[in-house]
């Protein structure tokens, strides 16, 4: 049977060594009433038939080409260097466990240390952890940090933060008795003000003012940021945010129907002891050679148990590795060019779209980078028409925000070349 290594002879020899007749003799502790014979599942398939089955399922999905994908809303099509998969598909990385035995895990440990350093540089904050599950849980974990740090039990979500992030925040909050308030001024009950930059619609918020307001009320400022935007936008560290979190999917990870992606979290050093998850640090051996180890484990569940800062154990290491390869490939100027190209194309597209009859920018007074909200007449019909032409049009955000019925956000990145945008506009005019 696939992936099983023992031959019948091996099994017989092993039973003999153990000194029992059969496997059943090893299962004596299981009450008879519980014993099954086998599973109500079909028999196994050959690898060929397995792949045939999966290919059939895959073929029942519609994949829109990168260049004709204009839908974002938290997951984006970007150029992914072949280098990323070439590294993350190395079995030495992807078949290793969490690096408990440091000396035999230096590859993973150093890669994660580099990831932490890259995120710290990008966000302008002191320390990054080794990764979290996704952007939403990163926001929730940051809120927990603020709750513990301030001893206050209310967090304010300011403006258009990704609706699913807010839902996850609520679910997390409930357990701990943390109230989640939409908007409003921070006060002495406020543990943190959470904002997204750019926001869920792609619009820039006044991060400095929000941070200031939070601090004035003695609350923490939590910035949920687009990592690629940080090549051009002021990083949270520059405007004084205490914690930066975000979704790392854009850093070299495939959409994959929503996961696995990676949540990042960086903070000021004052908050490091409240941080969730793994932290890799430098250590040396007796000969003075530098190595890397899991550090500050005293925060974690396997030591602190119910007093841990978080319950997270397995995180998203391999995705963090992918993000590290991506950022290292791009370097400061490559990342800037990606952000810059996306910005220019998005603004050019916005100009063309608002020229369409009845179309207008939903928030003409606001700035954006490469995702922007438009008021679109008969939005559903328009998007269906684009779909028929093989274009994955923008995202209807009215689904989450009543006041935004008929509003569609469009995203442009370096993968949407000029010809693709022409095709889009032609399709809309036709």
């Amino acid at each position, binding site marked *: 049977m696939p992936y099983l290594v023992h031959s019948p002879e091996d099994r017989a020899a092993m039973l003999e060594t153990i000194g029992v007749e059969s496997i059943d003799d090893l299962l004596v502790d299981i009450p008879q009433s519980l014993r099954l014979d086998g599973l109500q599942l079909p028999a196994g398939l050959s690898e060929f038939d397995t792949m045939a089955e999966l290919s059939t399922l895959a073929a029942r999905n519609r994949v829109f080409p990168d260049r004709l994908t204009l839908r974002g809303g938290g997951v984006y099509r970007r150029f992914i260097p072949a280098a990323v998969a070439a590294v993350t598909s190395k079995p030495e990385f992807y078949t*290793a466990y969490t690096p408990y035995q440091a000396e035999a895990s230096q590859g993973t440990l150093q890669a994660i240390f580099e990831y932490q350093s890259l995120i710290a540089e990008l966000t302008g904050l002191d320390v990054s952890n080794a990764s979290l599950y996704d952007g939403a849980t990163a926001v929730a974990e940051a809120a927990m940090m603020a709750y513990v740090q301030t001893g206050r039990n209310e967090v304010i979500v300011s403006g258009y933060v990704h609706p699913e992030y807010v839902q996850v925040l609520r679910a997390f909050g409930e357990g701990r008795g943390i109230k989640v308030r939409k908007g409003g001024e921070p006060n002495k009950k406020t543990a943190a003000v959470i904002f997204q930059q750019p926001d869920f619609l792609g619009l820039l918020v006044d991060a400095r003012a929000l941070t200031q307001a939070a601090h004035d009320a003695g609350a923490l400022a939590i910035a949920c940021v687009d990592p690629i935007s940080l090549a051009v936008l002021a990083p949270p560290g520059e405007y004084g945010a205490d914690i930066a979190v975000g979704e790392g999917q854009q850093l070299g990870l495939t959409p994959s129907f929503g*996961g696995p992606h990676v949540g990042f979290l960086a903070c000021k050093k004052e908050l490091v002891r409240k941080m969730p998850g793994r932290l890799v640090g430098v250590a040396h051996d007796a000969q003075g050679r530098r190595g890397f180890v899991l550090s500050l484990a005293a925060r974690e569940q396997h030591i602190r148990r119910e007093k841990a800062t978080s319950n997270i154990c397995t995180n998203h290491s391999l995705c963090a*590795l992918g993000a590290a390869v991506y950022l290292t490939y791009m370097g400061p100027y490559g990342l800037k060019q990606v952000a810059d190209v996306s910005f220019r194309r998005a603004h050019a597209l916005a100009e063309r779209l608002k020229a369409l009859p009845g179309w207008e920018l939903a928030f003409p007074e606001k700035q954006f980078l490469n995702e922007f909200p438009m008021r679109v007449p008969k939005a559903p019909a328009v998007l269906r028409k684009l779909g028929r032409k093989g274009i994955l049009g923008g995202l209807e955000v009215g689904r989450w925000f009543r006041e935004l019925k008929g509003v569609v956000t469009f995203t442009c990145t370096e993968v949407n070349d000029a010809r693709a945008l022409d095709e889009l506009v032609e399709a809309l005019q036709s």
Partner: protein
Amino acid sequence: MTEPLSFELSRPAVDPPRLPEAEVAGPGPADLLPHDALRSRPPGLPRLSEPEIMRHYSRLASLNYSISENFYPLGSCTMKYNPVVNETAAALAGFAGLHPYQDEDSVQGALELMWRLERALCAVVGVERVTLQPAAGAHGEWTALRMIAAFHHSRNENRTEVLVPDSAHGTNPASAALSGFQVVEVRSGPDGRISLADLESKLSPRTAALMLTNPNTLGLFEREILDIAEMVHATGAMLYYDGANLNAFMGICRPGDMGFDAVHMNLHKTFTTPHGGGGPGAGPVGVKAELVPFLPAPTVERTNGHLTLDYKRPQSIGRVRTFYGNFGMLVRAYTYILAMGGDGLSQASQDAVLSANYLRKLVEGDLEMPHEGPCMHEFVASAHNLHDTGVRALDVAKALLDKHFYAPTVYFPLVVPEAIMVEPTETESKDTLDSFARSVKEIVSRARTDPASLHAEPTNLPVGRLDEVTAARRINAYLQGTSEDPVLRWKAPSDGAS
């Protein structure tokens, strides 16, 4: 041989990679955005050419042990072979290229896969429904406890305590606490199993749930599980199953039949999705009927062949992560289940139990066995018998590394002093188990003859034993502001280096 950091290899003026150009003229960020919204100086990312980057990561990879090259008997972690075809399947454009906000009609294949995986997992653990949203086991534990809380709440019962055995994994109490419960510890008896007397004494109308794994973290099956279930249910509490040990009994028995009401599974253990050096994994949660209304939204529903996402779940605990879970991992797990089939999964568990008992037998003369066998898929030994030599479990672990084996889990579970927790899994050959046992024997006898040499292990690895104490002291110094060296990240030499 060690490798410099990418930051240390970086050189100021290396060309950035060639990237698409903006064909359109028109304004750039600096033209349109207020100056104070812009970044003042570029992020301090390293600057390297592609050949240097690839070599850097190739060298880092070669510093790792991994199942692809090493026996990895890490107890409680089920480090079994990761089939390569799983990776091929997950990489299919029809899966990897899907946007989570595409219309349902355009993702029927993906939803069908999720639906089938849910059915298969239900069959394996014996529950009604499964949510695929949780990203890992701990996430699943917490999700399940949220559902249990919601369940009690819906019945206007105020239950504030969760019982957790002293042998439980750290995520259990942590998840309970994060979910707002008080954690009450239940003691294990001398036979390594939960003490019914102690359980009896801790159960009360305040009890929301008992979290259990079976076989427990000692690898022992809780013989009295049916009585335990009865006791727990009698008080109106729920029974939660930590599925990290599911590899012990697929096709042999089912948590659902044992009386568990909620079950999490680690697809990155039992179902061969790779560990990735610490994730991503997937921690689906299965529940019995009473808990179904509280499942996270959306669920995947199937009505005469057509699949939909059901968001209208009034009693749902809400959402525990974005989108629909770690879909890429779900594809891998489903691929594995298809290839193994019911017959394969059952044989896998039988072989896992066989291998664990075989290896236990081989080393029982060398290490202490605090509890009687037979064990299930793993066993916990103790290096306590080496106490007088000054050799500790950690030394044994490091010595094993030098013999090209990854080390077993040590010092867990906490109830066993000098614990050495060994889980061979079904995908390691008898030859491998034999040579591992020989190495243990050699190390143990060396403990008697030359203990000092063991404190010096490992010596054949890229670095020797790392001094975590000094490292921790340096971190404190940084956090207290008495040192500039961040230790937890690289920093340009100018601003204080590691």
